[in-house]
């Protein structure tokens, strides 16, 4: 399967030049760009590992791209995403989110069905890779 979280997962993988344009868009909007990675891509895993804090003070896309290269070097076998945080009142949340790195093999999720009364099913998603301990999943 292909994990399709994020803004651009239905497109061909973005090149570094294309990623840089999106980063520039975020910075031009005054947002802070962040890099996060994980080997637990469950859709409700809201807290991926942070590659440092959001980069509030890096206003040059080239600087972000250097950080991305370093993150890829350390975690190239995992999912990596770029996020942008907007601190403006009324938002104070994420405004941009796309995946920039993914494992070679994406085994996906099992859907577990707990059968209850009255045909009610309690569903649970379990990532196949998640059976392994962190660091040995992909």
């Amino acid at each position, binding site marked *: 399967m292909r994990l399709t*979280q994020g*803004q651009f997962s239905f497109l061909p993988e973005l090149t570094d030049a294309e990623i840089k344009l999106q980063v520039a868009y975020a910075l031009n909007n005054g947002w802070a760009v962040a890099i996060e990675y994980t080997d637990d*891509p*469950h859709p409700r895993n809201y807290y991926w590992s942070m590659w440092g804090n959001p980069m509030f003070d890096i206003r040059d896309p080239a600087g972000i791209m250097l950080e991305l290269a370093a993150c890829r070097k350390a975690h190239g076998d995992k999912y990596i995403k770029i996020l942008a945080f907007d601190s403006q009142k009324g938002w104070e949340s*994420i405004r941009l*989110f796309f995946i920039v790195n993914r494992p070679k093999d994406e085994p996906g999720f099992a859907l577990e069905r707990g059968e209850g009364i009255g045909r*009610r099913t309690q569903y649970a998603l379990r990532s196949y890779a998640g059976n392994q301990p962190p660091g040995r999943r992909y």
Partner: protein
Amino acid sequence: MTKPVDAKITNMKERYASGVLKYRQMGYYEPDYQPKDTDVLAVFRLTPQEGVDPEEAAAAVAGESSTATWTVVWTDRLTDSEYYRAKAYRVEPVPGTPGQWFAYIAYDIDLFEEGSIANLTASIIGNVFGFKPLKALRLEDMRIPAHYLKTFQGPATGIVVERERMNVYGRPLLGATMKPKLGLSGRNYGRVVYEALTGGLDFTKDDENINSQPFMHWRDRYLYCMEGVNKAAAETGEIKGTYLNVTAATMEDMYERAEFARDLGSVIVMIDLVIGYTAIQSMAKWARKNDMILHLHRAGHSTYTRQKNHGVSFRVIAKWMRMAGVDHIHAGTVVGKLEGDPNVIRGIYDTCREGFVPRNLQHGLFFDQPWASLKKLMPVASGGIHAGQMHQLLTYLGEDVVLQFGGGTIGHPMGIQAGAQANRVALECMVKARNEGRDIWKEGPQILAEAAKWCQPLRAALDTWKDVTFDYASTDSVDYVPTPTPA
């Protein structure tokens, strides 16, 4: 000009002599009145009967929507009637439309019960709309003061929290209404939900008239839909939702359905506008209490929003619904099959989404409207839209919107999943191009054609619907045209 003979009578003995006075004489027209920051303001479009002058008509509207009755009553004198009387404070002709006037009326905040749309509307659109001296009457816009707004819950979830829950940022959300609207069995219905969500949509949706009919009872629908939702989540790694319509005959039935949806793990439920303002507010409270997104389908609104001379403008309905506390509202597409002038739609979208909406007559907004930190209401664009219009939709409607392609997903020649994929690819490539600084209004068709080279479903969608437009004149447009400014 006010004729002296009809001016407000200040001699109390004369004012309260039994009999009939003009509404102006009773004090409902006060051209010198300065609205207070705490006043509720309304602007009506008046079409008086022949021989009724506009100031008297405006005064009558102010009177009939506040304290007045047709004749003088002495019991007014037991109250601070001056204070409770609504005041028509400005009357001006509608540009280019003889026989119609805009009347601005101020209501003291104490005329209304806190947190009650039912009470607000019982005055503002109550008896007054049937008043004989008027041929027609339309409520065009309202200014709700922050003081009164703060007595309302506002959207149960709001755009920001909805996005955090759905884990979708930086692009419009995608949805589709299940078709055919009526007749599918629960099992077949769930199939359409599953295919559309797995193909790439975030949401699927019950239609407004899907409740619990002989061909599909509600429990059966919910159970099969949640199977589709969860299967699609497993196959994509995304959070998916389906708007389970809980509209029913009684509040007890609606709560029962909503609780069942919650217990099955649904992230969203839906209601129809026809359930009424009080029921909507009840469901909004329930949704806030149960961490549920609340979708509102505006079934019925066109009976009173569409004609310019009589009824209630949809921008007012949108305002009331943001106060009432729904999270989604159908708010027009501009390019689709349903009514929608671009300027009117812009005004409605701003009303839903902004923290402060400035007066803008070209967008049909007559007042500055502060929103006092009430959450943002997500507009939904639905009805006759397709992937080939993606650049227009993104330009007109922006990013914080649910784009719903029902026929445009389910009617795809390669199947439902392919239809969903075409929509998602069209959306993502257009957002990407916009962020890159490309002029999507001009280059849109080319951007779509480029993506269609590697995405066969998008190619098929563009070929199938390339000539489909709904190019009819709007019946509800704005009255103020831009005045060219000298360079």
